[in-house]
């Protein structure tokens, strides 16, 4: 999966703290054994998961830092929301003293969209604020998996590498353990208190940052509710009198109605991810999330009926000609769909919920009629859907193990600024850039300028973020819409058996399910058949899937199920 990342920062609230400790204790209580290194010869600390007392020793202490009380508290696993007016004059300072020592730090990170030029005003101002010379090596987020393996195999690994959970395929987990530094000495226990904004990151996000028995990642905490929202052009829906669909059949009918290829309009892009949600398919976000216990037996997502049904329905959409031709190109079409969405060439697409706000901000000045909104995920039969939780942190920044202590400290200085909560100067600098250049203030409301929409994207938020927060002082109604969407979807979200655990599979199984995403894309575009998927699943079983099942069973027996 390749959702657009970048959750927008936050002020950790007491509620989200409580929620997160509850999860952490659940994991701790369930897991008596320390390091569950399972499955024969590979052994050691390279595969398995870390929980219980062992995890507790590694986890940083939690120190809440309430800066602004959220207007919408967290509910059903949602982020906290801020919809009131932000007091720009009264922003607090969460980093009183520059922690950076001026080292050069190279960061490789996925980027969705067109990266700004090096040395732009945003990068310069952030580097000044932190006191570190961060040099960005942005790579296309849609094809990040294709770069990562090669870069990590080279001798030129950047100082910091950002790795989303969905890119941890093949031998990447082995690379994370082999190539990245143990941050335990800098962050475990009370050590984290040198970096107060990192200390305010919820414990369940840190729990997920333990790789190979060591604390290695700087997490981007997120809501456990799915991040993939079916986004649609509400303005065109209203103009044409379209109703938001409540079932797969309604969606199909609407799509046929809305498509007029001659007028260069199609209903949607590839809706595969939404189909998976509508049919209640286990998450494909991370390998361990794809497993769940059904009637006492562990089942992987590709083995389920729902998986096939979701693919079949998506195939029908393509076959009906309601999908924009660009979507047929799959990943080869790495262009930003934004302009064509704004031009009304298609009306619905699914992406990370952060685009709900970023598209709004992009179009606000030139295109006042443009209105993007998120539709509720529908159950395929018109009932309530069953959604599966994603992990409470899905994107991590890692520090090269060859980096000197000075560089590690400087990276942590960067993270301490980017993880600043909502209501601080650092939050504004990270998410809005420089006043006058990247945003202007009118009636106390910050509005992004064109340059702001170009420069202030992805980048710094990828290093570390505060507890999941949704706050858009420029578009409070969007923030409200996003949080409420998460809360409604959160009400029907369930946690699978391995929720919250960071699990590294043994090397010999890591390539087993590599080609399924490709196969899915082939099937929905009509190039392969459902029977090909069934064949691939039976191959998967015989080539090691069944043994992998036993391996996961051992972890489950030792740690207990997180399902709920």
């Amino acid at each position: 999966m390749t959702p657009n990342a970048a959750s927008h920062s936050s002020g950790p609230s007491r509620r989200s703290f409580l929620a997160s400790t509850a999860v952490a204790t659940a994991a701790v209580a369930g897991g008596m054994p320390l390091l569950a290194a399972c499955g024969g010869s590979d052994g050691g600390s390279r595969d398995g998961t870390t929980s219980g007392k062992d995890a507790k020793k590694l986890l940083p202490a939690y120190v809440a830092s309430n800066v602004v009380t959220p207007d919408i508290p967290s509910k059903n696993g949602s982020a906290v929301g801020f919809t009131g007016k932000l007091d720009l004059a009264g922003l607090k300072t969460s980093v009183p003293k520059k922690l950076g020592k001026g080292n050069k730090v190279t960061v490789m990170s996925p980027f969705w969209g067109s990266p700004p030029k090096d040395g732009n005003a945003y990068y310069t101002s952030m580097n000044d604020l932190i006191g570190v010379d961060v040099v960005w090596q942005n790579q296309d987020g849609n094809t990040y998996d294709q770069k990562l393996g090669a870069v990590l195999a080279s001798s030129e690994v950047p100082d910091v590498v950002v790795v989303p959970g969905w890119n941890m395929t093949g031998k990447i987990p082995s690379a994370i353990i082999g190539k990245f530094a143990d941050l335990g000495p800098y962050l475990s226990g009370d050590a984290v208190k040198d970096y107060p904004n990192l200390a305010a990151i919820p414990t369940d996000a840190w729990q997920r940052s333990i790789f190979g028995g060591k604390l290695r990642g700087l997490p981007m905490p997120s809501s456990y509710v799915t991040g993939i929202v079916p986004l649609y052009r509400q303005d065109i829906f209203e103009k044409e009198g379209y109703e938001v669909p409540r079932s797969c059949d309604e969606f199909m009918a609407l799509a046929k109605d809305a498509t007029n290829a001659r007028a260069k309009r199609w209903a949607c892009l590839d809706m595969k991810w939404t189909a998976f949600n509508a049919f209640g398919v286990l998450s494909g976000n991370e390998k361990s999330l794809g497993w769940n216990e059904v009637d006492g037996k562990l089942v992987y997502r590709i083995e389920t009926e729902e998986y096939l049904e979701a693919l079949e329905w998506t195939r029908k959409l393509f076959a009906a000609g309601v999908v924009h031709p660009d979507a047929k190109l799959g990943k080869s079409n790495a262009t930003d769909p934004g302009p064509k969405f704004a031009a009304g060439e298609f009306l619905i697409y699914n992406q990370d919920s952060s685009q709900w706000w970023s598209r709004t901000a992009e179009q606000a000045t030139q295109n006042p009629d443009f209105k993007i909104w998120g539709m509720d995920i529908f159950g395929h039969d018109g009932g309530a859907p069953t959604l599966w939780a994603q992990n409470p942190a899905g994107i991590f920044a890692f520090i090269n193990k060859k980096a000197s202590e000075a560089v590690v400290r400087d990276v942590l200085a960067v993270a301490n600024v980017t993880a600043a909560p909502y209501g601080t100067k650092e939050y504004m600098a990270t998410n809005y850039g420089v006043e006058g250049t990247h945003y202007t203030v009118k009636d106390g409301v910050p509005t992004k300028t064109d340059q702001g929409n170009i420069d202030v994207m992805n980048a710094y938020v990828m290093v570390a973020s505060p507890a999941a927060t949704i706050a858009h002082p420029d578009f409070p109604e969007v923030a409200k819409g996003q949080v409420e969407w998460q809360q409604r979807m959160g009400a029907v979200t369930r946690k699978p058996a391995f929720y919250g655990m960071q699990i590294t599979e043994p090397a010999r199984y890591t390539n087993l399910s590599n080609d399924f995403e490709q196969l899915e894309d082939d099937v929905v575009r009509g190039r392969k058949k459902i029977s090909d998927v069934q064949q691939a699943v039976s191959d998967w079983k015989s080539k090691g899937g069944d043994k992998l099942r036993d391996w996961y069973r051992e972890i489950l027996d030792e740690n207990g199920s997180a399902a709920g």
Partner: protein
Amino acid sequence: MSHSTVPRTGTEAEEVNENAPAAHGGAPGAPKEPPAAKQGLRVRFRRDRVLLLMTLPAVLLVLLFNYVPILGNVVAFQEYDPYISDNGIVSILHSPWVGLENFQRIFEDSAFWNAVQNTLLLFVLQLVLYFPIPILLALLINSVVRPRVRAISQAVLYLPHFFSWVLVIAVFQQLFGGAGLLSQLLRDHGYDGLSLMTDPDTFKFLVTAQSVWKDAGWGIIVFLAALASVSPDLYEAAAMDGANRWRRMWHVTLPALRPVIALLLVLRVGDALTVGFEQILLQRDAVGPGAAEVLDTFVWWNGVRNQDFGYAAAAGLVKGVISLGLVLMANKVAHLMGEQGVYKK
């Protein structure tokens, strides 16, 4: 797009071949000397020592950059994990040996055979539809008398070669894509749109068409050079004997081109399994691997994308072996045709 992480034996085989004719050229007087085998090695060494000294830098470079990396192919016999150490050699030493397991997997992998099939089909298609075009273009350009027109048309033909594949494919997409110029024009007139860019059935023709558009012009250079070396006397003599244009082309021009055509054909066959990495990788997802996977993208996908480096290296080795076989075969054919080919026995 870099694919240097995976050792590719195809390229190395090619380098060796390219060096062969140069070595011939290095001893111009060879036929006049007594047969080499009859002289002692020492005598020959002393005679040629200056020449040998002069080739030394080139030999060292070839050794360092072509032969030493070949040793990296040992990972084909390993479950290679480049991440256990920062040093590739240490990683090789610590990766477990699996013997021929990777090769066994290759022969059982239908995806590999699919890639072989696609590669060969594309090669044949390119040989039939692409290879003759530069020859025809060269003949055409050669017949243009006015130097100005000739220079302009040459420039126009060479230009696309300098566009990157990304650009070429983007242009094709804008023109022939599902929402492109041509499709919308058709829709405006009540027809269905085309899906040329995403149709797996016609993909190989699309790829060939792109190659022709981009590189056919560039390919005429060698043929033009060969044509320039034909003495005008021959044409005059043929004209005196009453040969018309067609007969002059058949009896004078084409025989002059024959050695070059044979040489390029052999080289092309040696390169048969390299049918365009970047071009195909960029369009792989548009039609799916079923139609677009070729050996090079197969190696890339398994090595770089899936980090299954040992397996990818094994596939690369198999490719190298097949390529070698093809070169030997093509060279044999060239000899039978009475041409030199890339080397003589």
